[in-house]
């Protein structure tokens, strides 16, 4: 819960941002402040995770290797929609066996192709109970109490890259100002 990951799409769905804090902590001890919680699934997809650290790493790496296997087996890359479905399906199957306690944000860019009329960036909010929704912006954890309000006010479909950077900074400032847990990075 103290983990925080957030993200949003910008510029009429031409880019997507996925961000996460970098603290790895248990109880009152902080192990490290430079943990990377956003995994590159492939050259055009990002998977940010929040929640239980071991599950987050195990699951996201499992997804990353399966996505790579698909590309080698079939000579084409999965698009973001299919990847979100695959991830959700794996979480759903594990849910009633040995669930992964991990919340995810999948951000991906799909190039123009017979499937996509134009380049399209998309963001999928996937929670630990295996729900999945395509969203314009989203966040996981306690931080969502603060960041969702910022997004509600500041997000619009035509964000430029510079405006996106400012928006990310606004979110970080708010967290460092108002969130009890110290998230320096």
């Amino acid at each position, binding site marked *: 819960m103290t983990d925080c990951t957030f993200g949003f799409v910008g510029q009429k769905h031409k880019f997507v941002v996925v961000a996460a804090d970098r603290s790895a902590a248990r109880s009152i001890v902080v192990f490290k402040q430079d943990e990377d919680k956003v995994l590159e699934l492939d050259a055009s997809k990002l998977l940010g995770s929040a929640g239980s650290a071991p599950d987050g790493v195990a699951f996201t790496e499992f997804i990353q290797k399966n996505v790579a296997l698909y590309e080698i087996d*079939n000579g*084409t890359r*999965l*698009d973001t*929609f*299919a990847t*979100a*479905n*695959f991830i959700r*399906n794996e979480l759903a199957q594990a849910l009633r066996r040995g669930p992964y306690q991990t919340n995810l944000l999948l951000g991906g860019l799909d190039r123009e*192709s*017979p*499937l996509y009329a134009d380049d399209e960036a998309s963001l999928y909010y996937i929670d630990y109970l295996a729900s999945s929704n395509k969203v314009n912006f989203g966040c996981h954890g306690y931080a969502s109490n603060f960041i969702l309000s910022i997004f509600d006010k500041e997000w619009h479909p035509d964000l430029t890259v510079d405006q996106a950077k400012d928006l990310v900074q606004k979110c970080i400032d708010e967290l460092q100002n108002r969130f009890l847990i110290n998230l320096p990075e």
Partner: protein
Amino acid sequence: ALASKKKSQQQMSRRYDKVVTTFSPEGRLHQVEYAVEAINQAGACVGIVGKDGVVIAAEKQNVRASNGRLLETTKTSEKIYKVDDHVAVCVAGLSADANVLVEEARLAAARYRYAYGRRVPVEQLVQKVCGLLQLYTQYGGQRPFGVKLVFAGYDDILGTYQLFTTDPSGTYSGYKALCFGQNATNGQSLLRNEYPDEPPALDDCLPLALKVMNKTSDSEIISESTAADDASPHVDLFSLSLKDLGTKDGPKVFSHYLFPQEKIAAIFKEHLAPDAAAAAAAAAA
């Protein structure tokens, strides 16, 4: 001496052809080859890839049986089956084996949809089915499937229509146009000559398929008289294509269309009858 050597070679292959799980000394799997033979006697099948669809024509054989008149005609085809919205399959060979494989193909397509939320790319589906076919040439001591499958479908990633065939060994090939079964070589030479460099429009594929069908059959099974005879249709003509629902910017759906006899007769009348008449006139002159 030569004659006796040939005989002993035949006897040699007979020693190694009883079970599929044994190679012959020449490195062949005779059971698999015999399975392929089973299909060569099957009714002819023609497949043609077009720019906006795929056409399959298949000769039905049970109509030719002596009790053909007593057989109840079915609305659905005994040769061509829907596997998913965007894939259909034509079967040739042992029908019972074919039914099992069609069901496996349907399951594989549905499982892909369940995992990825998308239609399965046709080649991946074919590879899955081929994986199953290969098992029966290596494990369990069970005979291979005596079936040839022709998959016709649309690939979302490439944006094109495709045609694939599988055989009992578990290998597959992709085609622009194909013909197999009885007298297939006649049909193949016709296709080699007449299939254009670029995939043609669907409406041009239909008469070509019927023309090849006539070439491969002993008698002319598509003629004005047989085509109009609803009681004993010999040929299934099928097309798979995207159809507009008519609404502006609305979704398109895949149409799996089995041509009724009147339509086959109409295509024949419009495209094939004039050529047939001209050929007859030239022969008479």
